[in-house]
């Protein structure tokens, strides 16, 4: 095994970005290839980590610990590691990003800059999932902000500048809250005995009953809620979600894939790693709130999706709806629910990426995203329409696809949640289940109006899928089906960690 595997994985894309910087602007294909190769090698590295990941072992693997900046009263450390929670997300990131890079073949302007930002973004995202030091985590979290701002603001749609600034300010404020929460946590930890920024050390300090006097319950509750709001912006949870439709709709296809596929997961990951990991008791205390917000997200997102005229907006709102399932599963504090939450993160990552890719491919041909203008696509571009339909089915949660597994697990979890954790768990489960019907309604209705029905005259002669487009389409759909029919491939990696998280409150 290569030493410092995680560092290599995280910084390889950055190295690729530096190489791209040295290539003259005119050699667009060279730039594309370097970016493609870099993200592909990163993908391979992450699969090597995945293959060598010791299943059944709880705790961090591939750990790296170095002191970075020593300030006298505290040091910022370079601490990396992966466990069952971060491992799937790491692979999700590399897969989605590689496919997004492939899907970026349509980018014709300012190619060099574009791929530099993509690769920087990849480093930031990977860093978030492996960092175990609060400062380092925050650094990577913020690092994703800048590339996304540029990608939306330069290569986006008509309202790109507005969307880019909205994205920057909303998620920036979220990060600001996160920083405040982090350091409040650090400070109380220091008062309790140890000045550390390491997540695992902090979890120990906060779990130690001897510190209960210093770290009061009120403080813990305030801390948890602050963290929750901070990550809610990224996730996004109602009512902090308003940046997402704008960002998604304006972003170029590849960026939408990454945004929905990976960036939203950073919010969920933060919530689970920091919120649930360090303050499990508070997570349990507020489980009812999280569950209720989860249901609100599911229903509200679905209702809004139902009335959208723009196909891409519809997919964006469906993302909000699907993130509600993550909340629901996590809040249940059952093994099944927590598994469902993580499954949903991965599954939605692939499904949303595929949906956004399909919408992008169709828009590229028809120059419209309005559902009413898109009738009868299956007649001119049957392959694209077919994949779109498949993606929609996966999103609805058709058995045999990944969405089904995650929804099933999450709903089972919430249904069997302990009444002490969530008082009206069964009622919540039933209401949430209505969301599935709504999801089926808006997706099927949208599919009926786009792929079937009357063909628009101007769309009579469209070119069907190009060879390069098969790469993201087939890979994503393949992964969705793979997880759907063989969930153990994911399950055996996450189980130990899931049991760990759930056992912290004695569930």
């Amino acid at each position: 095994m290569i030493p410092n595997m995680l560092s290599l994985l995280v910084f390889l894309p950055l190295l690729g970005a530096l190489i791209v910087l040295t290539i003259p602007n005119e050699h667009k294909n060279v730039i594309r290839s370097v970016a493609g190769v870099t993200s592909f090698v990163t993908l391979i590295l992450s699969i090597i980590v995945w293959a060598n990941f010791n299943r059944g072992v709880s705790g961090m693997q591939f750990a790296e610990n170095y002191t970075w900046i020593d300030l006298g009263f505290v040091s910022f450390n370079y601490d990396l590691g992966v466990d069952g929670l971060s491992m799937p997300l790491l692979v999700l990131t590399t897969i989605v990003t590689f496919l997004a890079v492939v899907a970026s073949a349509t980018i014709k302007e300012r190619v060099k800059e574009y791929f530099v930002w993509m690769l920087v973004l990849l480093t930031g995202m990977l860093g978030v999932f492996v960092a175990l030091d609060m400062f380092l985590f925050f650094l990577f979290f913020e690092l994703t902000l800048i590339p996304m701002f540029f990608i939306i603001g330069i290569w986006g749609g008509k309202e790109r500048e507005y969307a880019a600034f909205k994205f920057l300010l909303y998620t920036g404020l979220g990060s600001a809250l996160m920083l405040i929460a982090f350091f409040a946590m650090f400070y109380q930890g220091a008062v309790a005995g140890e000045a550390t920024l390491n997540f695992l050390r902090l979890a120990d300090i906060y779990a130690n009953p001897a510190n209960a006097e210093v770290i009061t319950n009120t403080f813990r509750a305030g801390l948890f809620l602050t963290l929750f709001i901070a990550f809610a912006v990224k996730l996004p949870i109602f009512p902090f979600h308003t940046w997402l439709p704008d960002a998604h709709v304006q972003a170029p296809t590849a960026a939408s894939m990454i945004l929905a596929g990976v960036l939203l997961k950073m919010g969920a990951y933060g919530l689970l790693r920091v919120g649930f990991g360090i303050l499990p008791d508070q997570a349990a205390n507020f489980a009812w709130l999280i569950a209720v917000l989860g249901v609100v997200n599911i229903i509200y997102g679905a209702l809004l999706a139902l009335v959208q005229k723009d196909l891409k907006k519809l997919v964006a709102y469906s993302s909000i709806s699907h993130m509600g399932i993550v909340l629901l599963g996590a809040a249940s504090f059952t093994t099944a629910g927590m598994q469902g939450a993580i499954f949903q993160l991965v599954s939605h990552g692939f499904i949303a990426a595929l949906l956004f890719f399909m919408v992008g491919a169709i828009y590229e041909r028809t120059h419209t995203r309005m559902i009413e203008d898109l009738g009868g696509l299956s007649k001119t571009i049957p392959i694209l329409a077919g994949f779109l339909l498949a993606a929609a089915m996966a999103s609805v949660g058709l058995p045999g696809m990944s969405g089904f597994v995650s929804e099933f697990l999450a709903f089972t979890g919430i249904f069997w949640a302990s009444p002490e954790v969530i008082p009206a768990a069964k009622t919540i489960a039933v209401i949430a289940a209505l969301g599935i019907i709504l999801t089926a309604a808006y997706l099927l209705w949208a599919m009926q109006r786009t792929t079937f029905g009357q063909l628009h005259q101007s769309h009579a002669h469209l070119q069907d899928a190009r060879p390069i487009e098969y790469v993201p389409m087939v890979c994503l759909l393949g992964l969705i089906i793979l997880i759907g029919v063989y969930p153990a491939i994911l399950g055996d990696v996450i189980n130990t960690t899931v049991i760990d998280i759930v056992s912290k409150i004695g569930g």
Partner: protein
Amino acid sequence: MTAFNADWSLMTPEIVLAILALTVFTVDFTTGIRGKKPFIGTLSVISLLITIVLVVIFNQNTGSIGDMFVVDPFAMLFKIVILIGVALVILTSMSYMDKHQDMYQGEMYSLLLFAALGAMLMVSSADLITLFVGLELLSISSYCLAGFRKNQAKSTEAALKYVVLGGTASAFILYGMSFMYGLTGSTSLVDIGTAMPMLYAEYQFLVIMSLFFMIAGFGFKISVVPFHMWAPDVYEGAPTPITGFLTAVSKIAGFAILIRILAVGFGAIYHEWYFIIAVIAALTMIIGNTVALVQSNIKRLMAYSGIAQAGYLLIPLAASLSFNITMSMIVYYAFAYVFMTLGAFAIISYVTEDANNEDISSFAGLYKRSPFLAHSMTVFLVSMAGLPITAGFVGKVYIFLGLMTSQMIWLAVIMIVTSTISFFYYFTIIKQMYMREPSEEGSMLKAPTSISLIVTISLIGTFGLALFANMLTNYMNGLNWIIL
């Protein structure tokens, strides 16, 4: 110890700089008053480099001359920051001067050298008199520099405003100092500091008055709210490189001396003033950052951004931390601040001169016209906004951490929220550079060597301080900052 048998070698850097400044001045007026004089600029930069080397060599030994002029790590580090800053300003001026043949070129450089000398004296003084001499040497040079474009109404207005208000501020400072002298019969900060607990017990009102006047006076010099009103006008009117000088160098010098007075003179009654400083810091961050949002003139925008940054720099003083930590925070941020601000000002100066327009829109499409300048500007702006892998980020987190440790959560929240607000105006400039097309033909901009040099140095500083922060903080943690 009297002044006569003191170790005058401690003052070597200052003496050498004074001689060099006079030499530059002499060379300048013997070579005719008008015309291009790049060699004077080069000479000045060399003088500053020599002085930096001398500071590093001679200020290794701590000591003092008659308890008036003190050499300690505090003075040394601030001197290095100041000298680097002035050198960068002169380099910026050299390309600026190419466009403005009507200005007396050599004078500007020698005035900057005298200003640097004044700032050096200031940070080394442990006595009210030396301090005031240094302060006025810096201030008077600054007044002249602000009005250097004498044919321009705005510049003249700036100088006039600056000299009147600056004079008032100096008067406030002197008035505050006179109370201290009256009470203790000494101008030595050390004596004042020793007597402080007793003074405060007996003459509470006078001590508070003195403190109030000094904070007001110095508050003006470092342009913190509510003493900041002059700054946007003066910054806008002054020649752009001088604006950089005022926002960066002169402010840092003002900070240094405020710290020394508060720590040495008024350290004993810390609990009386820390809250005032905290409130000033809060107001400064709020007003600086929000008013910057609506600026369309880039120099005014940077003026408000500089005001906001002064707020961040004040925070460590307000937080009750060990003096060592307070100092390393301030010095770290001061280094970061000088690099990112002067790097940005070099680019602003060059771009606005080229466009003949100080509106933010002069940056439109810069990425096309000069990718190097656009990317570098982005780095400086991102650093000022406090985003990752830059010195500004590490510095801000450092300060923020200190605030949390001293339990000033309210101030921490203000700092973070206002920093986020600042994203908006910093990114507005970035938007112009990358998301707008250049207004004219979009001709390529070829940055002159001096500009490229500053930008490169500042880039190295901005990234280097972040990546190798450990070296600086380790070094600073082991320092015995103030010896008197």
